[in-house]
């Protein structure tokens, strides 16, 4: 088990990078606690897999150092790093049985036969693979194969961290949920440091204690799922997380007034300190857009109501600004002239995309 530190890591796939754009991963510093569950979340091409491969040692970073428990292991090959990795497509050794697959990493490390048997049996039981042990690994289903991949990491006693590279991509939707909860269970049991790469926000938010949102080779926000939800530090995070994503509307600020499409809304706690040239945006999640009868509420028109199962999404127009709002499933029908208010606690102002701290 280990604490992982990344110091000034950056990576480029170009031999002699000279501009920012040549870097798939721009300079970043990060510390991950021993035994934590982390998720790297972002759209494809954002650098999350690059970062994962730097940690596992499959890639050597162009600059910077990787530290495990304070030791610089940047130059160590993957097999000397005490990590395990589960890949997007299940990797099993076709000609071996499930038992031999699980025993393979131990055999390569010259673990005595008796101990191998004990470890493999124990892990197989936890992964519910005991019955499949004598079967050929290639005959198993995709989810069982992914369990084998994971199992090859779990059998080792020396594993400091387990890395997951979009491990549920090829798994049937109904099995995804059960594998995910099994994974959470295993994390609680073993307390391995786990790093999970995905582009699926549900997977990231349910799995991780801390989610690192990446975009275009940079870390945009690293925080708990709740903070990502309540206080996205960048409009990218606001839009990317949540379904539907945050309402981001161009705005202006005049003293204690927020101006949305020439409409002045008093917002007493806003005290912007943005430079005059900054592009200002107002952000509020659909969950915090409420319908109201009060006089100062904003009159809107309804363009559509979508049923999303346990809630409804109201697509609204305030003047020409599109705003989404979430309605409970059993909400009464909207009035003919609906009006909305924003929850002041969860309304944010962004300058050039970045969240402005309140009360500054």
């Amino acid at each position, binding site marked *: 088990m280990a604490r992982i530190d990344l110091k000034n890591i950056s990576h480029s796939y170009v031999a002699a990078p000279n501009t920012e754009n040549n870097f798939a991963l721009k300079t970043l510093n990060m510390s991950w606690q021993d035994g934590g569950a982390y998720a790297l979340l972002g759209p494809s091409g954002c650098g999350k897999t690059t970062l994962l491969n730097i940690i*596992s040692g*499959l890639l050597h970073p162009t600059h910077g150092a990787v530290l495990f428990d304070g030791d610089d292991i940047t130059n160590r*090959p*993957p*097999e000397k790093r005490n*990590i*395990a*990795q589960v*890949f*997007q*497509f*299940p*990797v099993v*050794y*076709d*000609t*071996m049985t499930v038992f031999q697959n699980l025993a*393979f*990493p131990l055999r*390569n*490390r010259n673990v005595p036969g008796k101990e191998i048997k004990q470890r493999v049996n124990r892990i197989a039981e936890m992964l519910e693979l005991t019955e499949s042990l004598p079967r050929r690994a*290639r*005959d198993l289903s*995709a989810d069982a194969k992914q369990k084998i*991949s994971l199992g*090859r990491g779990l059998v080792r006693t020396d594993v400091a961290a387990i890395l997951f590279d979009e491990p549920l991509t*090829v798994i049937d939707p109904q099995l995804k949920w059960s594998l995910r909860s099994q994974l959470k269970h295993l994390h609680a049991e073993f307390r391995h440091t786990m790093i999970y790469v995905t582009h699926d926000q549900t997977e990231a938010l349910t799995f991780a204690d801390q989610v690192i949102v990446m975009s275009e080779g940079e870390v945009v926000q690293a925080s708990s799922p709740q903070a990502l939800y309540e206080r996205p530090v960048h409009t990218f995070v606001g839009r990317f997380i949540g379904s539907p994503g945050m309402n981001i509307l161009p705005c202006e600020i005049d003293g204690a007034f927020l101006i949305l499409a020439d409409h002045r809304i008093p917002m007493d706690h806003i005290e912007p300190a943005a430079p005059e040239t900054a592009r200002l945006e107002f952000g509020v999640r659909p969950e915090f857009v409420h319908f109201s009868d009060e006089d100062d509420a904003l009159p809107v028109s309804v363009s559509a109501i979508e049923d999303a199962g346990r809630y409804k999404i109201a697509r609204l127009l305030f003047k020409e600004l599109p705003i989404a709002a979430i309605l409970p499933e059993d909400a009464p029908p909207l009035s003919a002239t609906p009006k909305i208010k924003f929850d002041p606690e969860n309304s944010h102002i962004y300058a050039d995309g970045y969240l402005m701290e309140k009360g500054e």
Partner: protein
Amino acid sequence: MRKTLNHKALWLASPALLLVAFTALIPLLTVVNYSVQDTFGDNKFFWVGAEWYKEILLSERFHAAFFRQVAFSAAILAIEIPLGLAIALAMPKKGWGVSVCLVLMALPLLIPWNVVGTIWQIFARVDIGLLGHTLAGFGFDYNYTQDPVAAWITLIVMDVWHWTSLVVLLCYAGLVAIPQAYYQAARIDGASRWAVFRHIELPKLNRVLLIAVLLRFMDSFMIYTEPFVVTGGGPGNTTTFLSVDLVQMAIGQFDLGPAAAMSVVYFLIILGLSWLFYTVMTREDTDAEGRLP
């Protein structure tokens, strides 16, 4: 892939079937026809039944040619398959080196077969050939026109020169199709180079190796032009393989009956092998489908 039942599809295949029927069936029937008849040369034929077959199957000459053929095919398989695999494993997998290797290695495959013979004839002759001259210079008693051992070695080296690239290219295609994740997982599992070969590369190459073995077996079993040009079947009969023998009998001696009977026997041997080839191939196909993610 699930296929739909549609008997009209036969029409789509009909041009190909008619062409192959014309080029294959009619000559084959001619051969069968000759194999059961005899003639006194005045275009009058009479029925002799299985007479020619008996003669061929019992003849020392056929046995000897068959034995030489099997020995030759076995020898070149034993050399070309491991050698081709080893070269494919050592080849660069990306960069400019790939194109250079592939183009240069494929070169012998596109040289007309009798030119391959000519190249080796010129290369191996003691008087004018680089190889023969050099060997003689080192004091080896090398002369492929007189010494059967030298003739055999020359033919085997020539075949290795000519065809190992086919094995290399097949194995290379199989190797580059293995997803990187397998190698990465093996590194993380601490697998040795040998273990990677044994548990990842070899199982994944199963299919292409099978194609390589069978193609090489078939083609070496039918070899004619190269030994005909280089040794002409000699010295003596020591390099007279089945095809060389057959052409000698049919065109050289114009023994139509025995030659036809031998053709049928020869073809049946190959047919048996292609049946093996086909069943093994299709079995692999269903396996592969069941294995897809």
